[in-house]
């Protein structure tokens, strides 16, 4: 395993990563405890208090229906993070299985799967998402199916490369010589070696998945109103930019903070799990290459 005792210490030494962890922790707590934090239910309409500016009573103001924006933002966190985690986990499972099969068995199957990955990569990410969503018709279920299925390729490539680099090592050969079957070899001996980079790509991809969800919801192709999602809240705020800028401001701020913190955690994890690539000076500088590099830029 890559996580030697020094892992936690190394991670803690990267202050910005710890900051990222703290920020994400706060958002996660807000999301779990949403009903406790929210001053009102997210869909409680009260036309008397429509479009009120932020105040003590409504810290993030109210929307045209008098709904409390803070309440909608914390409940929106549940949808954005929920869809993000679920979709990313689907990508992870598909990518892990297909990548492991491709790397372990090789041959025609490997070639076929990798060409399929090439084709997936040939699309600008958001466009492929849009094309798939168009077919499934917009909605929350098609959202995480789409995000989950489209994200498999980068995980599969990474896992395949890891499996290839591990499968001829002595301990695997020893296990094979002592009669371990394919499934046993893969699950017990090879895949544990892939966990560290997979964790990094999961975290970095999570931020991008949440961003993609919000982008689709912003375009009206994801979560449909009145369900609160950060993307659709920002898009709903456009018409009121002049009179009520807080409508678009707060959900966008939370989205940015979430993606930011996940990127920091991902960079920190990568450096902590693999000290060789860690940048010496300011910890903010991630190495230009590395498993997470391309993932950071995907999905814009």
């Amino acid at each position: 395993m890559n996580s030697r005792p020094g892992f936690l210490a190394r991670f803690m030494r990267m202050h910005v990563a710890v900051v990222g962890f703290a920020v994400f922790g706060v958002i996660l707590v807000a999301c779990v405890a949403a009903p406790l934090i929210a001053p009102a239910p997210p869909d409680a309409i009260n036309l008397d208090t429509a479009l009120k500016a932020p105040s003590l009573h409504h810290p993030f103001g109210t929307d045209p229906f008098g709904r409390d924006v803070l309440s909608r933002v914390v409940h929106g966190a549940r949808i954005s993070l929920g869809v993000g985690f679920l979709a990313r986990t689907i990508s992870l499972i598909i990518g892990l299985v297909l990548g492991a099969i491709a790397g372990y068995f090789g041959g025609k199957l490997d070639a076929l799967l990798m060409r399929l990955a090439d084709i997936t990569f040939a699309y600008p990410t958001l466009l492929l998402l849009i094309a798939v969503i168009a077919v499934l018709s917009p909605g929350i279920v098609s959202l995480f199916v789409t995000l989950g299925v489209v994200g498999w390729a980068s995980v599969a490539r990474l896992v395949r490369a890891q499996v290839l680099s591990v499968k001829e090592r002595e301990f695997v050969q020893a296990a094979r010589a002592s009669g371990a079957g394919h499934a046993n070899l893969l699950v017990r001996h090879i895949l544990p070696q892939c966990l560290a980079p997979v964790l990094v790509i999961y975290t970095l991809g999570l931020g991008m998945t949440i961003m993609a969800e919000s982008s689709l919801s912003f375009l009206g192709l994801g979560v449909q109103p009145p369900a609160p999602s950060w993307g659709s809240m920002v898009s709903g705020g456009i018409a009121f930019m002049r009179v009520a800028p807080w409508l678009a401001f707060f959900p966008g701020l939370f989205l940015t903070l979430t993606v930011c913190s996940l990127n920091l955690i991902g960079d920190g994890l990568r450096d902590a799990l693999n000290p060789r690539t860690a940048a010496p000076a300011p910890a903010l500088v991630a190495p230009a290459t590395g498993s997470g590099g391309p993932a950071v830029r995907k999905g814009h």
Partner: protein
Amino acid sequence: MKTFIARRLLLLLPILWGVATLTFFLMYVVPGDPVRTIAGERYDERTLAAMRAELGLDRPLVIQYVHFLGGLARFDLGRSFVTRRPVAEAIRERFPKTLVLALSAMFIAIVLGVFIGALAAWGRVPGLSRILMTFSLVGVSIPVFWLGLLLIYLFAIKLSILPPSGYGGGSIRNLVLPAFTLSFASMATIARITRSGFLDALGEDYVRTARAKGLGERAVMGKHVMRNALIPVVTIVGADFGSYLSGAVLTESIFGWPGLGRFIVQAILKRDFPVIQGAVLFMATTFILVNLAVDISYGFIDPRVRSGGGER
């Protein structure tokens, strides 16, 4: 070099075919009957059948697929369900506007990104490096659509110095905000890559040699450091082209820019499948060709790429 280009071109064909095939079949797993969706409730069975025949939807899937590929070879992407206009014609009309936006954004990203990255690596301004690197983190984390709105709020609503949205007959004033918005993420990445490229190059022996032989700071930076530091930037610019196309979908929607991205979104809301199919296919092909061009130009800049066959 010739074999390198030939090999890349050969690899291109199966990918293009794969993208075309995937896009085609995606649109055919659509639940429900597209004709019924277009026609709504108003038409009887006979009109629907006539429409189906006109659009070629009554033929077997394989025939439709062959017809589709044949059409592609002639740059014929079919007709819009809604307006009946040829999709290729609409793309020809709108793509230049997306291209103007993407290229301006790319220009801003390269100029400002390299400048910021180089400034951070130069390290003569205390604290600057940290601020700029924070900027580069925020840059890749901030949603394009939210950044666009913040800029509209600041420059169009509060300061009233730039128009909030619209094409404005292609005037520069209308281009500034969308182009800057679209450039932001890429600018941040370029700044980051440039900084580490400069730092690496600054530590090289040939830089010490150049300094030792008495070259001025300008000559050292310009001639020796810059050239080597910018090689990775070329790759990033190419790889980021996809994010310009994706980002254009969002940026155009916020700023009411009449390009291809906004066209696709409108087509989805109307369930106009030939338009979605054609426009997505067109954008993906553009992306693939740009990546190819970057790969090839990389081969020119850095001879090591040509010999090593094991890319990816």
